[in-house]
């Protein structure tokens, strides 16, 4: 790019700073959620936080790591299962949720050791096989009693109101933690390495990017996040029926949220999750047609707008409010043409 005297490189623009301040204010309000909102709204918001976690972790894997998995329900289900197991073993219930997420993340390290050596569609379906196998093995546990399932009995010790508030806070804290963690990862060396791998794996390796090690970290993070989301979903639903957690529908939701919001952007999946949450609220009761609509939307966005709503938005307004990359001031034309300021 030609150097011009009035060009400078910025990351945090004034508007971005203002945006972050307003985000913090929003977070502050949400932190007092159970005290401010009705019981129904509190429950719904807890679900929204789980959706955000699912969308963000799937996007980390596919949008940044280039790893499309149709088996993330494996981790969602294992997180919920381990939470039930740990709780039955005497671990107090909310720490058990976190522990279930961490343990699944560790387990993902072993799974990734094999699966990450697969490419493209082989990885995608291979993960689905892993999810099916995890489902079948969990069904064998006498505690789960096959498809009959079980429930997180330990939550009965809390009153309904206390349970609702605690679950809300747990989900909110987990979501914020995950968002901050993913943001930090993407802004750092690892994020740059990831995007290099996504764009061209062989070229990245030739530049000294440690491809497998980088994928490992992302896979583990995405698995742990999905597992934590599964454990939190269990806390909102209480009952654990394996087929409801190991259903490929969860991956369909993740793909919908990420694709519609914006694959490979930080903000996109969050927007997609809010949109999915709204759509579900409005049309979830219409059952099958609602699912057909979700599938059709995913298909349409994949074909005609693969960078989603947020991608379309940033093409028009290149300034990033949550900057992952750098912004060249005075080169708006070049940035708009290439959209290439995110490096």
């Amino acid at each position, binding site marked *: 790019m030609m150097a011009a005297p009035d060009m400078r490189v910025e990351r945090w623009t004034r508007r971005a700073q203002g945006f972050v301040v307003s985000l913090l204010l929003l977070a502050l309000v949400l932190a007092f959620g159970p005290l401010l909102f009705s019981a129904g709204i509190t429950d719904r918001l807890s679900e929204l936080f789980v959706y955000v976690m699912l969308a963000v972790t799937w996007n980390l894997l596919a949008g940044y790591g280039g790893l499309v998995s149709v088996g993330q329900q494996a981790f969602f289900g294992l997180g919920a299962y381990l939470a039930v197991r740990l709780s039955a073993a005497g671990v107090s219930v909310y720490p058990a949720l976190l522990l279930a997420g961490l343990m699944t993340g560790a387990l993902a390290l072993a799974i990734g050791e094999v699966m990450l050596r697969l490419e493209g*569609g*082989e990885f995608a379906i291979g993960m689905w096989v892993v999810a099916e196998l995890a489902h079948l093995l969990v069904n064998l546990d006498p505690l789960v009693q096959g498809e009959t399932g079980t429930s997180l009995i330990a939550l009965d010790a809390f009153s309904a109101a206390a349970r609702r508030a605690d679950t809300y806070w747990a989900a909110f804290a987990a979501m914020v933690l995950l968002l901050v963690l993913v943001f930090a990862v993407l802004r750092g060396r690892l994020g740059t390495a990831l995007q290099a791998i996504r764009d061209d794996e062989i070229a990245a390796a030739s530049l000294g990017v440690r491809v497998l090690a980088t994928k490992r970290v992302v896979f583990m993070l995405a698995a742990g996040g999905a597992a934590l989301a599964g454990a939190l979903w269990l806390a909102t639903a209480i009952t654990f029926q394996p087929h409801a957690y190991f259903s490929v529908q969860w991956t369909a939701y993740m793909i919908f949220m990420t694709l519609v919001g914006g694959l490979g952007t930080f903000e996109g999946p969050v927007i997609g999750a809010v949109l999915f949450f709204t759509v579900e609220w409005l049309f979830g009761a219409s059952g099958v047609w609602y699912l057909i609509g979700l599938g059709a939307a995913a298909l349409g966005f994949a*074909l005609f707008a693969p960078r989603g709503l947020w991608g379309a938005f940033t093409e028009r307004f290149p300034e990033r409010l949550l900057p992952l990359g750098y912004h060249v001031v005075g080169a708006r034309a070049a940035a708009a043409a290439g959209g290439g300021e995110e490096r």
Partner: protein
Amino acid sequence: MIFLNQCLQGIFLGAYYALIACSLSFLFGVMRIINLAHGSLAVLAAFLLFVLADRYGLSPWLGLVLVIPVMAALGFLLQILVLERSLKGGLLVPLLSTFGLAIVIDNLLFQGFGADTRSLAPYIGDLSFASWSLSDDITVGQLDVIILAAAVALLGGLQLFLARTRLGRTIRATAEAPEIVGLIGIDARAVYALSTALAMALATVAGAFLALRATFNPYSGGMQLLFAFEAVVIGGFGSLWGTLIGGILLGVAQNLGAFVNPHGFLIAGHGFFLAILIARLYLGPRLARLRLARLRPRRPRPHAARPA
């Protein structure tokens, strides 16, 4: 002897897997994409046959004559409307678009037919249970023998078609270098569309056999995709015959799993698949290059090299 019978039934089951797998691997060989809607499309074909048999009293065998061209035309449309555009979008887009398509197909089928489990077995008379007894414990279903024969004939036919005919050579050339075949007067888009149509015709036969020998419902597609994929990976290296062997090994593994434990059928199948995968990834540099079945054995393409 019961053990032997389980193995034998596994071989027959594997013939079905090989059939559903061969079109998946054929399409992957031509365009380098895995169609995640593959199983759902086979189940769609099964439902079309079911409607013809149930509502119009048409025998499934005659129904196939009608449904195969319809599904081939659908395949043509699938290529023009979905896959062609997806291919331009990079490596991820075909997976996302075909997954979205699978959700649409599954739920449309559910909307149209409800959750009931169906089968075509009631529409083929005695054939659904007629069998030959080889000994006290070993019986061979006549339908199973037909399916095995059809699988061998179709896989062999596809192999011959690709190896010997002019169109087969054209498809192979396009698979090898889609950008270059234009120079010798081949329209890669037309070849792709034709290949997808052919793959859908094969998937229709597979869907018919699924419906004839077992049961299906609107959400059966996902599992058929997994079985097809497992058969391809287990058979792995080399030709379409590898796919037949892969399908049979998968079927035998599943039946032996069921022999050991009532829950063992699927666990053994998935477990066997993963074991083969791990063995192939860690044993030997030659086997480490995991690839879906190629159209024929050949040297590795330059971009097939993977960084360690």
